[in-house]
């Protein structure tokens, strides 16, 4: 039996020291995903370092954006006045996820690092390259209705389940990290890796590196933004497709656009092809459709998830239409 040690960090330095970059150590946020995975014995850490006491502030940056501590609870972020007023897509994305109880526990850092809900990842009798590297993938030819159509590889088709991250990538959020070699900041779009041949390596984080904060740049037109989540039941379900979008329209012309996709990709998906296709064009349904087509052009369906391509297109069109 693996003895589990629990330590509570008081600041980032003590967190990193306690963690020590060991492969058997995990940072613990709200525990709403990590503890589930421990119960299922998919994660078997020998040490959890509780970082929920760190950086729970949301404050304005000099540039007019927000700096959000990694320990901020999902509920607090969704309800924050500035978030609701200036980044409604983020507030709505968070509120569309999980349940009130879970959002009260879950932290921003933990949400970013949550792991896939692929059924085969959870079943230790099944083959899974993410759980057991180079063992094979039973999802690719299995029951894959919930799986990804973008960013997939022959090794893995599992989706990243976060709603919050979809809004954050659309907002060009930057992740602040603290590691053994110092602090750095990288775009959130660069934090999660595509699975390629190594789906077990999910992020570019160095061993023991800690997410300390998320920074959202100033983006005035994000006041006109939304998050649309399509799922099989009305609440408490992961997205089949979700769209985070902000649109800057003047005189019927799209001046700028931000689009993120969830439920369809192996990482929180920034839909740059769609953005490129629509910026400078008239805000019409036909142009939105063309943008959606551009984004999904290289989507690769599996036996059970082909519907997500058309569903994603329709949801993009509908969401942009609502904002236009």
């Amino acid at each position, binding site marked *: *039996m*693996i003895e589990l040690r629990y330590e509570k960090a008081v600041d980032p330095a003590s967190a990193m020291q306690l963690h020590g970059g060991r492969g058997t150590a995990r940072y613990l946020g709200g525990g709403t995903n990590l503890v589930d995975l421990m119960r*299922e*014995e998919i994660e078997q850490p020998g040490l959890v370092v509780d970082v929920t006491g760190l950086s729970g502030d949301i404050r304005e940056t000099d540039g007019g954006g927000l700096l959000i501590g990694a320990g901020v609870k999902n509920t607090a972020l969704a309800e924050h006045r500035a978030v609701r007023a200036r980044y409604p897509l983020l507030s709505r994305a968070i509120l569309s996820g999980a349940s009130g109880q879970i959002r009260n526990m879950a932290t921003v850092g933990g949400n970013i690092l949550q792991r896939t*809900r692929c*059924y*085969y990842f*959870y*079943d*230790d*009798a*099944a083959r899974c390259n993410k759980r057991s590297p180079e063992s094979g993938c*039973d999802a690719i*030819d*299995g*029951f894959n*209705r919930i799986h990804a159509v973008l960013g997939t590889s022959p090794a893995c088709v599992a989706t990243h389940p976060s709603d919050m991250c979809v809004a954050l990538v659309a907002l060009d959020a930057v992740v602040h990290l603290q590691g053994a070699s110092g602090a750095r900041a990288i775009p959130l779009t660069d934090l999660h890796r595509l699975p390629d041949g190594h789906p077990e390596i999910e992020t570019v984080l160095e061993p023991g590196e800690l997410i300390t904060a998320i920074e959202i740049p100033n983006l005035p037109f994000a006041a006109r933004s939304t998050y649309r989540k*399509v*799922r*099989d*039941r*009305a*609440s*408490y*379900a*992961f997205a*089949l*497709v979700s769209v985070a979008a902000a649109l800057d329209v003047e005189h019927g012309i799209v001046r700028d656009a931000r689009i993120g996709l969830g439920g369809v990709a192996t990482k929180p998906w920034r839909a740059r092809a769609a953005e490129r296709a629509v910026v400078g064009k008239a805000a019409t349904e036909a142009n939105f459709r063309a943008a959606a087509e551009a984004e999904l052009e290289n989507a690769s369906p599996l036996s059970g998830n082909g*519907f997500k391509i*058309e*569903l994603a297109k*329709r*949801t993009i*069109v*509908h969401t942009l239409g609502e904002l236009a």
Partner: protein
Amino acid sequence: MKFDTPATTNPIDRLKVVGKATDRIEGPLKTTGTAPYAYERHDAVADPAYGYIVGAGIAKGRIVSMDLAAARAAPGVIAIVTAANAGKLGKGKFNTAKLLGGPEVDHYHQAIALVVAGTFEQARAAAALVHVHYARTRGNFDLAAAKSSAQPPKAGGIGGKPDTAVGDFAGAFAQAPVSLDATYTTPVHSHAMMEPHASIASWNGDQLTIYTSNQMINWSKGDVAATLGIPAEKVRLISPYIGGGFGGKLFVRADAIMAALGAKAAGRPVKVTLQRPLMFNNTTHRPATIQRIRIGAGQDGRITAIGHEGWSGDLPGGGPETAVNQTRLLYAGPNRMTATRLAVLDLPEGNAMRAPGEAPGLMALEIAIDEMAEKLGMDPVRFRILNDTQVDPEQPSREFSQRQLVECLRLGAERFGWDKRVAKPGSVRDGRWLIGMGVAAGIRNNLLMKSAARVRLDSHGIVTVETDMTDIGTGTYTIIAQTAAETMGLPLDSVIVKLGDSSFPASAGSGGQWGANNSTAGVYAACMTLRDKVAQALGLNAADVDFADGQVRSGNRSIALGDAARSGELVAEDGIEYGDLDKTYQQSTFAGHFVEAAVDAATGEIRIRRMLAVCAAGRILNPKAARSQVIGAMTMGVGAALMEELAVDTRFGFFVNHDLAGYEVPVHADIPHQEVIFLDEEDPISSPMKAKGVGELGLCGVGAAVANAVYNATGVRVRDYPITLDKHLGRLPTLT
């Protein structure tokens, strides 16, 4: 008490307590967390060890070797039970596969070992160290592929005959001016109850006590004994509170047997719960079906031919999903056939889930009826009413004891505003939503099962009822208390009800919506015997004694009921047994289900807007508990219609989405508005209670009412459940 002639006026008819909307008498225990469930019986069993089940990692094949060395050496491990060391085990009458597999593996997640340790965490960690080497063999996991090999199941049992035929179905169908020939599918459903199977087993010498969560104590007592090879009188099952069953706890499952074996091996009590991920493949499920329905009618809308064939699969020795049976009774028509076929599938064993047969059967039949009505250009409520029958269509000499389906449909249509439905599908819009209304009929038979109880009267006038009947969240405690209070002329709070203990007289148990009518009839019988004893003790003539207001009255004498027990507790034991009234009459319950659904025109998402059920089900013993049963069933019907599916990985033979994150059932946000109406009905043919049941009726037809509402909204007919958005997305009406 033998019930073989229709009930006349009896003490229940006073309806001072019975028939009143009554809060659950055990409700405060549940809302305060003080009703102990099986896994929490620390009060009864001190210091149990913990068992953790190892489930098979293959669906079919054999265990070549099992390395237990590392697990045995792990901290805290007390014992490991496998088929190799468990001794010879039998199999219960109600089990298809063995509850402890090995070396042969019959299905995925079949228990193949139990690791017993001092703590749960130790047991779990050690279980992960059990290394099993399997040899897989090929199995049949795909119903569609196995369909052509399906055979008629053996006749008898609740399922009835595999084939029925009246008149010339083929000829009449071929000649019918309007006809439908369509195939429908329903997927595997899981009971997915909140409380998983859980047991604490404790041996005292050769006497075994199991605190468990089980709907049918008497069946299960026998099956525990049969499995362990011990006499039934050495087994005691205790199951006073049950956190949901839906048919999944009708039978002994691996938790109880493995706890008993573990406790024997460990030499101390052992508690076992099925881990949530095992709940879906280790236990039973509602089997998937393929159903072909053919209906022929004249231009006048009268059905001339109706045929229903159903295919399902199960492990060898298992039974079919009897999806065609309601079609034998629901509509008139001179030429008819039904056929049930069973294929061998190497999936976990199928068995009863709430409204077995009718739930999936009506999901298909009641879409077919909607399709026929449309072909005839007839309103679907009117089409159903036109084809109503007041007799068993296969045996017209048998009348229904009560049949108010037409009344259910008429009243439902009126209350729901059915006249506002636009027959042409896809024609009503509300912003981005396409709106539709659907209707379906529901039928579920009333099953008669003998049921016994013991009642005790003490000198304070308190009556205590003891029966092995169970309350699976349905309100049984309360209706039994109401029955005893009514019969003995007492207020509700003068009755104590004790349930779920195999040392009590055997009851009907909870299943097949038979629990309410039969168990209360058994309690009524015992109370009538107690009344005789009271009269005798007080020196009164039982024939002219009145029991009311806690008093026993005869002529001008009025004596406190408790006085009859002044010189010692009075105890009476009796039960209800039935003659052949269920052969003379067809006894069924009926419902009209109405649903309004909205479909997002862009994404195809389906959301229910409102639902109405009108039920005719005999006397309603407690309208509040009955309403709760029906709205819960309606919710389950929405799940079946729109989201519930245990997905089969047909390569490996297991249910893939085997937890509550993957197997979605409706949440509150899916169910905005539900209304239930019970018609006034008493059925003197059913029992002295004149009641029937509603727990399954509430589900029967709901799925099709949803499906028909979705069709009315979109114009896209989906015949394969669940109706998820991907099945109609590409065919939705284009936005304008």
